[in-house]
């Protein structure tokens, strides 16, 4: 799941691969509020996971989001 999230951040949001690290917040990766909404949309389309606006908060780290998505995908 983490790999898939990394790929989405790179391919859909143009975040350079070498900048994507678990401890970075979405905001630090240049994901603004509009991009965060879009990320939620892509996660739903590709992984069938519904995440709320709060869960894709730009202050969340990649790790926090990956944990949420993993938990929901397994539920």
């Amino acid at each position, binding site marked *: 799941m983490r790999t898939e999230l990394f790929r989405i951040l*790179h*391919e*859909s*949001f*143009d975040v350079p691969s070498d900048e994507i690290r678990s401890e970075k917040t979405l905001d630090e990766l240049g994901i603004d509020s*509009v991009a965060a*909404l*879009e990320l939620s*949309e892509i996660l739903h389309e590709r992984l069938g996971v519904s995440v709320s606006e709060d869960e894709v908060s730009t202050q969340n780290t990649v790790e926090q989001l990956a944990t949420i998505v993993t938990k929901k995908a397994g539920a």
Partner: protein
Amino acid sequence: MPENGPASITGIGLVTPAGIGRSSNWATVCSGRSTTTPLDILADAPVGFASTVPSTFDIDRFTGRHLSRQYDRSTQFALVAAQAALNDAELTPTVRSDARIAVVIGTAFGGIHTFEDNHTRFHTTGPTAVTTRFLPKGLVNMVSGILSIELRATGPNLVTSTACASGATALGVGLDLLRADSADIVIAGGTDASVTPLLVAGFHKLRALSRSQHRLRQASRPFDRDHDGFVLAEGAGILTLERGSDAAQRGARTYAKLAGYGATADAHHITAPHPEGRGAKEAIHAACRDAGIAPGDIEHVNAHATSTPTGDSIEAAVLAEMTPNAVVTSTKGVTGHTMGAAGAIEAAYTALALSSQTIPPVAHLEQPCAAARALDLVTGAPRTGTFETALSNSFGFGGHNAVLAFTRT
């Protein structure tokens, strides 16, 4: 720069059916080769052919980034063309770091692909299927906004929309911004990703499109007696404009000078030009006056001529009366009609004609229509000679007329 002084055209970026890049465009336009092809996406449309940007166009490959999902196709064309123009002008980030950079982009349809896609989603699946990026991708102003972000251009930033004159209007407004000292560098041009089944259906209803399916490679034949409508096309043309003194100071190459701009409205009809070309004549007068050139001294005209019987004939009569000494071409025989991009793409071709002293032919012109017989049209092969002055005409639905005047460097 004097109040009405010319601007130096220092960079040209082109993404058109005639090629991606300045050199490939010029080679194709001078060859007179058709770019019209049948298209699968138009299989159910009333006209099944158009001229599209080569399928090798891939913004992700050009930029090394993942932008194809983020930006509408029209913005992708403009961004690649703008970056190409800046590279061509050697306006590196360092050179332009202290400059006030304006962006003025003409477009008739803005993010039409994004609108169509989201409209389909809305009607097939419902409002939840509308994408988050629908409006940031689709709004008509976003192309200039996105260019400002991508190119760090923080000066005046706007979109002009005068239908098929939009790209020429953008360059005219860009010239005015330099003259008003509102910017040091202007990135100006036009873009439209207008080849969609919906637009084909709309233009077909207006009887504006060629229906020459049986000889579609010759379907776009401006000024020909068998012209029967235009071939829908897409693309972008972006130019960099600078004050002559600034260009000279940094040793920049100048293709030609943009010396004048004339804009008028027919105030006559929603789609048809004024039968005597009233607004077109006034725009030619205004552009020539602005450039300090008498219309009779114009030596080359890149005509708007889209290959429609009415439009071609009226423009031909206007040119025969006003610019009797001009060598005339219409490059739409090769490119088709790129809508809001056309005026900018043709401004680039006009600048290239002056810099190379070569005028491309009107592709597929065999026998001129009655009104065009009085014109000195380039047919067959390109014409070489000495050309010091030129006009590029652009006209749009709504009665918009935009004429640009150029002088040789």
